[in-house]
């Protein structure tokens, strides 16, 4: 019976975990803006998750645990490459061919470009909060900084983005936000 039970559990969680992989890939992409690198980071994350699966004690913390592994992989990458990696040069060359729909949007381009201009610690925090929807406490755990630092980074990131995006034109932005709400 236990075999059947475990088999059913594995099957029922299949879609849930496929979705998690996708989320990890997206956040890796939000940090690196490079699809090949994002793939490698997620693959490495999966490998490390497998290797350390016995350390995960509670399924409820799985998201934060995986994000933390991904974050550490990303930090390892940055350490190897040097903190001054020029991300502008890492733009995905295949992006235009593979994703015309969103690339056509000037607003998305502008938002991504504004996010790119943020110092990396601000970019990491704002994407974890606003894209992945993690709590301040979870982000503090993932990035290994005090919760107050998360708050101040998030504040500074949003201030910078607001400034950048307001210059772009509030009409364009409100139109996009409204379309999302619909």
């Amino acid at each position, binding site marked *: 019976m236990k*075999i059947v039970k475990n088999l059913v559990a594995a099957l029922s969680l299949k879609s849930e975990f496929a979705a998690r992989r996708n989320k990890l*890939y997206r956040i890796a992409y939000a940090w690196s803006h490079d699809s090949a690198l994002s793939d490698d980071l997620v693959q490495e994350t999966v490998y490390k998750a497998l290797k350390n699966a016995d350390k995960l004690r*509670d399924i409820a913390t799985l998201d934060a645990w995986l994000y933390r592994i991904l974050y550490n992989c990303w930090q390892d990458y940055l350490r190897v490459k040097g903190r001054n990696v020029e991300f502008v040069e890492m733009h995905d060359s295949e992006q235009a061919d593979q994703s015309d729909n969103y690339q056509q949007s000037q607003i998305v381009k502008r938002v991504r470009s504004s996010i790119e201009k943020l110092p990396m610690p601000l970019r990491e925090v704002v994407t974890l909060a*606003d894209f992945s929807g993690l709590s301040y*406490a979870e982000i503090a755990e993932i990035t290994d900084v005090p*919760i107050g630092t998360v708050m*101040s980074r998030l504040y500074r990131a949003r201030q910078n983005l607001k400034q950048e995006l307001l210059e772009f034109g509030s009409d364009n*932005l409100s139109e996009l936000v409204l379309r999302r709400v619909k």
Partner: protein
Amino acid sequence: MVDHNISEERLNLFIDEQLDSDEMDAIHKAVLEDATLRERVCQLKAVRELVGYAYSEVPPSRYENEKNKRIQPGFYRAIAASMLVFIGVLLGWSTYGYTPKAVKAISAENAFQYVANHVTVDDRQRKIVLHIDSGDIKVVNAALHEADQLLATYRKANTPMKLDVVTNKGGINILRDDVSPYLARIQKLIEDDDVTFYACARAIQKARKKEGADIRIIEGVTTDKTVRQLIPDRLKNGWVYIKA
């Protein structure tokens, strides 16, 4: 009189719901009354929405491309994959200790299943200890918010869960009936959600010595153990530790 002079930092905490309910209500009221404030909140929310939107579609990963190219045999494939995962669990995943290449060859999808399965078979009751060692309003708000979220998540999943909140240093102030602004919220957690609160005996002793007066801790809080006893004891017994 509602204070409309609200800093940008506080508005950030407001849109992320990181303030306690009184502060949330006060700012909400101010926002309703003040058009400028309302616009500031809207701008911040728009920024948040836009960051979320900016990466809602990204170039497909190699994994997605390969997945789309693969023939989908459906149910039998799922069974086969799951059996592979389950056999791995039965064997204690004997390969991954010394043959990393073998692990890398396993698809990411199966890898995630393995993690899920591995956790699922662990049927111990969910036990979480939340450690608060600061009276800082931001830390405490975040911690109580975290507690609420944990309780809601497990309740929704219909999974039994025990939550202990251990406080020391400045954290014990949230449990003092003469200084804490969180008493109602904490009482609710104790009475409605069966959360157990601890105030470190040593921290109480230190505070008493420093202030030269008795430290009054609210009823229902355990005060006879130190944080050095409480947390290691729980960790040894498989509790999940969260530091606020």
